[in-house]
């Protein structure tokens, strides 16, 4: 048979150092082991293979040859717990990671919270809630931290030492702002029609400041207690 001759030649080349009279001549045996190991749902031991192969097949020699044949390929013949199976080559496992990139939009609550952090930073969660008039779920801040647009800055020097939040450089980059001070102020918001011109006189839009240096009433984050806080449901 042509293909047998072909394979023989190949095997000879691939496993040039096999002992004469070994497995290399048993082309059919080699094909059978390949097929059995490929289709099996579990790794197979040498004995299990031998049971399913024609009597007298030198399974051990075939396995040795095949191990060498496949060593350089994308799939290797490996031994796991004294059983044999094919496995993707170690250096190619990166191919098995498929990264799914999903475009997601921020929820309304997240947008509001983000905006408040941007304008009112450094701001604590309680302050955000006060401005929004509703309680902010932990999830909303988590999502915003995941976006990389806000960060924990420090702790407010008030009872409970709440964490203060501020925006990051990634925030500026994403929203195309050169500095945080480019965020429009009260008059600009009115001018753009975003704010009703009839807002009460007491209405203030703060001048945002994302300076890295902590403000006077902020303490640096202390990692130990931060962890504690982060787990605090009320934090």
């Amino acid at each position, binding site marked *: 048979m042509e293909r047998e001759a072909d394979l023989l030649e190949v095997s000879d080349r691939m496993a040039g150092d096999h002992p004469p009279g070994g497995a290399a001549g048993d082309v059919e045996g080699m094909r059978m082991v390949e097929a059995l190991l490929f289709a099996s749902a579990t790794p197979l031991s040498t004995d299990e293979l031998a049971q399913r192969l024609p009597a007298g097949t030198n399974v051990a020699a075939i396995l040795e040859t095949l191990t060498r044949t496949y060593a350089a390929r994308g799939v290797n013949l490996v031994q796991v717990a004294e059983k044999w199976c094919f496995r993707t080559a170690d250096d190619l496992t990166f191919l098995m990671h498929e990264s799914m990139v999903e475009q997601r939009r921020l929820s309304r609550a997240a947008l509001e919270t983000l905006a*408040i952090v941007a304008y009112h930073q450094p701001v604590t969660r309680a302050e955000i809630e006060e401005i929004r008039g509703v309680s902010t779920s932990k999830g909303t801040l988590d999502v915003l931290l995941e976006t990389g647009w806000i960060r924990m800055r420090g702790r407010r020097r008030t009872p409970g030492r709440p964490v203060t939040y501020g925006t990051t450089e990634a925030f500026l980059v994403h929203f195309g702002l050169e500095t945080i001070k480019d965020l429009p102020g009260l008059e600009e918001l009115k001018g753009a029609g975003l704010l009703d011109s009839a807002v009460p006189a007491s209405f203030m839009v703060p001048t945002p400041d994302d300076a890295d240096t902590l403000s006077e009433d902020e303490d640096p984050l202390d990692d130990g207690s931060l962890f504690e806080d982060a787990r605090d449901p009320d934090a």
Partner: protein
Amino acid sequence: MAQSEFQDQFDGPAGVADSRAVSDPTLVVDVDGFEGPLDLLLTLARNQKVDLTRISVLALVEQYLEFVSEARRLRLELAADYLVMAAWLAYLKSKLLLPEQKDEDEPTGEELAAALAFRLRRLEAMREASQKLMARNRLGRDVFARGMPETTSVEHKNIWSASIYELLSAYATQRQRQSVTSVRVARRTVWSLQEARELLVKLIGRAAEWAPITSYLQDYLYDEDEWATVVASTFSASLEMVREGRIELRQSAPFAPVYLRTRADEDVHGT
């Protein structure tokens, strides 16, 4: 019959389903394991041991009719399909035997025979095709896929997006929402016409001298909020009293003070 109704609903009013409405598929199988008259015809045709393209349709028709009459002689229950087919084949036979008539609307015997032969060949072809199909190397029976596929791990990564417009409008909207404090509409004090008139009557008494209307009201005009209603109601009440002839009004020019006094000839009016 429920079955035929169902078929109609499923495939629409197709003639094929209708013509067979009276037959029950389970009965069909009972006739010696044939799957319908076409299957029986195909089996008979095969018995001619020739290529299906060269079968004698006439001989086939006769075999079928013979089969049916034999079945009837044995009092076998034949499904209606078989009888319909028998009737049609009897018609075909007559067409084939009689000299061809010039009737362009009806197909000739040869055409009918060819159509029947075509259907038989097509059915046979489909049976062969199904055998060839099933004889292929089928997955899980003849050829096998990898027994231990390596699952690819999927890493979910989110890319968040928001525009500066969304950000600003969210901020403005929610700040504004919060800035709107509840407005309570204060209840206004209103002097009714009745009250104003009573007051007016009491205040002017029998004053016969012209005096500005507001001079009577000095005690009541201390409250700025009430000024308008007091003046308006009093003026309206005074107009009514003028109509009744009880007082007189005088104004020298638009927006000038309005003067009033009791009417001098009240006794005349009283008569």
